């Protein structure tokens, strides 16, 4: 979970990391007041939960009043990767001599903590790693290792920092490490760490991602207004609805509604559809053992989506039971009715019972089942996927 720059900096401050003087502004008046208090020139920085702010024009420098009002006006109207800018961080501009990179992350290739420094700061560090790998220096630690001053000194030497700045750099690196460990971070970056013309090291930017699953250990974050948040960018109305219903759901751009069980098959099922010449309209995962209500809601999401031309249903009854799954589908058909053709398959736990429930319901009200094809274990899932692709084609 990503933090806003102003939030990350608040936390960095607690660990003795030097920061530019700044104010967080949630409105235009706020922003002007902050700039007056700080004195021009100031940096005007949009606060959004995504990278690439600089490239998108989300960071401005204001030398005079005209530039200031232009910047504030412009940034509050800006969207960065679909995210509207709702607040700004106003900071006193720094006299930059050099820009350094300092970051800590978990190396998922070998599960070590990497403390990374580079003399090529202020730019995208991934591209430095690709083009000039010799400019990337790192200390690798086990999860429970100490990070010693001498290790920070070694990094400082490698990035050619003047000797008299060694101790300042080490304090910042240790502070960042302490922050990383104390708050269960996945990523903590200062890019750039600026060496000013006056010879001070200052964290000009702050990028932090925390482990969502460790948030319960940090009640103080909640007091700061930092709560579990989603970082996928703007959600579609259907995605918001699905989230409220506790269904993992994403809109995609195809026309086959995916009605699967299990996240793993949800991902693979989309591939199958594409292998057979179709395209999925969504990703969906019910979570374990969905209730009949939840199953009805899953179908509701697909039926109300005009983009969906046909539905592909697959249930592997594990802990969840196929008869309960069938009940959910039948409940939806009776109460709401399905306006699209659907082909589905049930296997696993109680699949015969699921098929039997469908048979009974069809005898009772054949109209409801006119455009629904259901199968048990005898038809392989690949055939069901192919049929769904056909149904979508016929519906066009």
């Amino acid at each position: 979970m990503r933090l806003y720059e102003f939030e990350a900096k608040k936390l960095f401050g607690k660990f003795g990391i030097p920061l530019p003087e700044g104010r967080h502004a949630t409105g235009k008046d706020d922003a002007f007041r902050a700039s007056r208090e700080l004195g021009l020139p100031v940096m005007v920085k949009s606060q959004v939960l995504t990278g690439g702010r600089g490239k998108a024009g989300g960071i401005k420098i204001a030398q005079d009043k005209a530039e200031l009002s232009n910047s504030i006006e412009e940034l509050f109207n800006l969207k960065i990767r679909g995210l509207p800018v709702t607040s700004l961080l106003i900071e006193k501009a720094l006299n930059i001599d050099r820009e350094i990179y300092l970051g800590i992350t978990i190396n998922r290739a070998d599960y070590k903590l990497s403390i990374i420094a580079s003399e090529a700061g202020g730019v995208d560090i991934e591209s430095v790693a690709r083009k000039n790998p010799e400019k990337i220096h790192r200390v690798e630690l086990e999860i429970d290792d100490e990070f010693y001053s001498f290790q920070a000194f070694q990094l400082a030497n490698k990035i050619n920092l003047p000797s008299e700045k060694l101790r300042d750099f080490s304090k910042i690196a240790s502070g960042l490490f302490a922050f990383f460990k104390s708050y269960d971070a996945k990523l903590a970056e200062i890019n750039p760490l600026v060496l000013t013309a006056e010879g001070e090291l200052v964290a000009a930017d702050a990028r932090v991602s925390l482990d969502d699953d460790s948030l319960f250990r940090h009640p103080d974050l909640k007091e700061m207004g930092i709560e579990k948040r989603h970082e996928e960018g703007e959600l579609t109305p259907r995605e918001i609805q699905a989230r409220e219903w506790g269904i993992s759901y994403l809109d995609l751009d195809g026309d086959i509604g995916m009605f699967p069980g299990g996240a793993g098959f949800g991902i693979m099922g989309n591939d199958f559809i594409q292998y057979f010449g179709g395209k999925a309209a969504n990703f969906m995962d019910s979570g374990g053992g969905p209730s009949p209500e939840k199953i009805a809601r899953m179908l509701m999401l697909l039926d109300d989506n005009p983009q969906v031309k046909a539905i592909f249903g697959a249930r592997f009854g594990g802990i969840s039971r196929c008869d309960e799954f069938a009940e959910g589908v039948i409940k939806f058909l009776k109460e709401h009715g399905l306006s699209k053709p659907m082909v589905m398959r049930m296997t696993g736990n109680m699949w015969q019972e699921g098929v039997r429930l469908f048979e009974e319901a069809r005898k009772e009200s054949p109209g409801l089942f006119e455009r629904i094809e259901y199968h048990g274990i005898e038809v392989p899932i690949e055939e069901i996927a192919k049929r769904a692709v056909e149904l979508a084609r016929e519906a066009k």
Partner: protein
Amino acid sequence: MAILLSGQSKVIVQGITGTGGSFHTKRMLDYGTNVVAGTSPGKGGQSIHGIPVRDTVAECVEEFGADFSVIFLPAAFVGEAAIESIYAGIKTVAVVPEHIPIADMMVVRKAAAERGAIVIGGNTAGIITPGEANAGIIPEIAFESGRIGTVSRSGSLTYYVADTLTRSRYGETTCVGLGGDPVLGSTFDEILQEFDRDDATKAVVMVGEIGGVYEERSVPAVKAMTKPVIFMIGGVFAPPGKRMGHAGAIVEGNVGTAQSKIEALKSAGAHHAKTFMDIPEILSKLGI
């Protein structure tokens, strides 16, 4: 023969008195799993489904010779529970709960490596050795004793692959769920090595998905295998940057894409199955 879990394994359940622990203990017993005890600190001396409850794992090891543990506890307590098992000398630990804090799982990995234990999960469906034992939440219906080992990051795909193997009369030796969490106790390489040492296993099916680097990391282990490896990768057409159900299944930039995984595994000599039906075809072409 099988890997990690057999009819002789002495299984305990950590968190046996909880709802999930108690429910799945019953299922495991019904399957014939040799569940010898369970733990629940403060409830030592009670029993559940006729299985004795103890306060600590150490007691279970001393009294019953326990060597396999399945954890059913809230995520916040899982790290310590896994360490308790590892310190007590348990050989294999299956972590069923999901959303285990990353830092906890990293400490668990280190402890397991230092003491020679195998931890699988978090967010694993468990391990099943068909006809012998079932440890976790795997529905036994698709499984039948046979010749092929499977290892997968996803529970539902484990079932589909086993269903395919069972219906094509290959059957399974052991099926291992690695789990869907972002930091896992074990990854493909460790499990592949186990399968390579098992005489009954004639080939291994590994099922990966987008996100993370587990599949790429397994390349040296795949190359070192003396038996064929067939693989599937889910998420070939997944949109980048979107999280699809599993916390682990997120693609960022070029890291963790299906294409990079497929190329890495092919170059290591593994056989790519696009759909489940491809698996028996490839096996038969290989003369198995």
